């Protein structure tokens, strides 16, 4: 007994070190696991409020830039509106503003954005109080940003598309060729579209858009252009490098998308497997 106590006293520093290290490592491993809820995250009350104060301060430094972006987006939206009103001339158009629209859009601010790690997350300033739930898609004026991971009352954490765990449905514009969009962890400006069949027509410069199979994102949202492509798996599949339209290192205003039909679609999709 005496020896055990002596041992404990002699190695108390080492034992404390090992104990705390195990805690730290378990937090780290959890943080790399996409499906598990982590204890250490940036949507808590204190952390969230400090981060939003910080965003408030840094806002003043790029008002100019943001104004330009907003006015460009306004111009684009106006063009689309004109196009719609042109094609809908004389038709019933109140459906555009009813409650039962297929996609609801929530504007949000980015408070925290990472892009140099292999698993990056974004924190935004709206949460379950505003109706945000996990697995909603997040887009910005120039492209896609990520998928909501978890939300507290006022803040939400978004899995960035620059995260090795994420895999999104995407397709080549103008064809029905689909693939899964992944990030290999190196360059924040490119992603890769994998599992594209060899017979698909892949041309450099073609546009990549979100696919119709995705329940997270609306279809036809622009993602990027094809930079180059290579054949993998003994030449049976293409791996396409996609240059993103949006700059993931410079995000500020984003939109969270809620899909009305998501639950219904998922029920249909999983039907056959339960029989």
């Amino acid at each position: 007994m005496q020896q055990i106590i002596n041992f404990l006293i002699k190695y108390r520093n080492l034992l404390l070190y090992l104990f705390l290290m195990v805690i730290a490592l378990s937090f780290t491993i959890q943080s790399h696991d996409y499906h598990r809820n982590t204890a250490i995250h940036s949507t808590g009350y204190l952390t969230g409020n400090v981060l939003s104060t910080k965003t408030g301060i840094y806002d003043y430094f790029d008002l100019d830039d943001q104004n330009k972006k907003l006015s460009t987006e306004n111009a684009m939206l106006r063009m689309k509106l004109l196009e719609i009103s042109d094609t809908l001339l004389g038709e019933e158009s109140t459906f555009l503003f009813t409650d039962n629209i297929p996609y609801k859009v929530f504007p949000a601010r980015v408070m925290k954005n990472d892009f140099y790690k292999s698993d990056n997350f974004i924190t935004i300033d709206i949460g379950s109080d505003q109706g945000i739930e996990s697995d909603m898609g997040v887009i910005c004026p120039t492209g896609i940003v990520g998928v909501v991971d978890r939300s507290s009352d006022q803040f939400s954490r978004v899995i960035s598309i620059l995260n090795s765990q994420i895999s999104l449905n995407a397709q080549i514009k103008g064809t029905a060729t689909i693939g899964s969009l992944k990030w290999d962890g190196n360059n924040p400006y490119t992603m890769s579209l994998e599992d594209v069949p060899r017979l698909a027509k892949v041309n450099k410069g073609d546009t990549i858009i979100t696919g119709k199979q995705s329940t997270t994102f609306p279809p036809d949202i622009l993602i990027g252009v094809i930079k180059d492509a290579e054949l993998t798996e003994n030449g049976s599949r293409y791996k396409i490098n996609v240059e993103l339209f949006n700059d993931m290192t410079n995000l500020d205003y984003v939109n969270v998308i809620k899909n009305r039909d998501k639950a219904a679609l998922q029920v249909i999709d999983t039907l056959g497997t339960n029989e």
Partner: protein
Amino acid sequence: MNSTLLNNVLRFVGLLILQIFLLDQINFLGYINPMVYILFIILYPVDNNRWSFMFIAFALGILLDTFQNTGGAHAAACLTLAFVRPVFLKLVYGESYLMKNLKIIRTPIDRLLLLSVLSVITHHLIFFSLVIFNTSQILYTLKLTLSVGIATILIASLFLIIFKPKVKS
């Protein structure tokens, strides 16, 4: 409250705020954010109570982890740095540093720099290994350690030079 304790509390809060509000925003070349907050661990008073020192370092790390969504990477790196600091002190100031009632901030700048370099390498290597967490990306981890480490040492030595008390001649 004595002045050493007050000094350390101020240093803890000050460096934390500085790190979150200013240094994490630098993004030099897109990914270089110096981690100057480890100056707190480097400059922590020398005494025999390593238990409280390790707890404080761990707490500092966990706090930063919550802000950066890094799980426990900061905590692990800070904890290890606190654990091995006596070894570095022995290396830099000699075997008898415990007898001399050493005040780290008052020591010559060359010794201070050597201590910082050793600490920064240890801390950054552990931190980035845990953040990247992928053995196939060892080269990327080393590249991050080196480039961010150099930035940290530059900014940290700037701080040391500014805040170092003048030696009475």
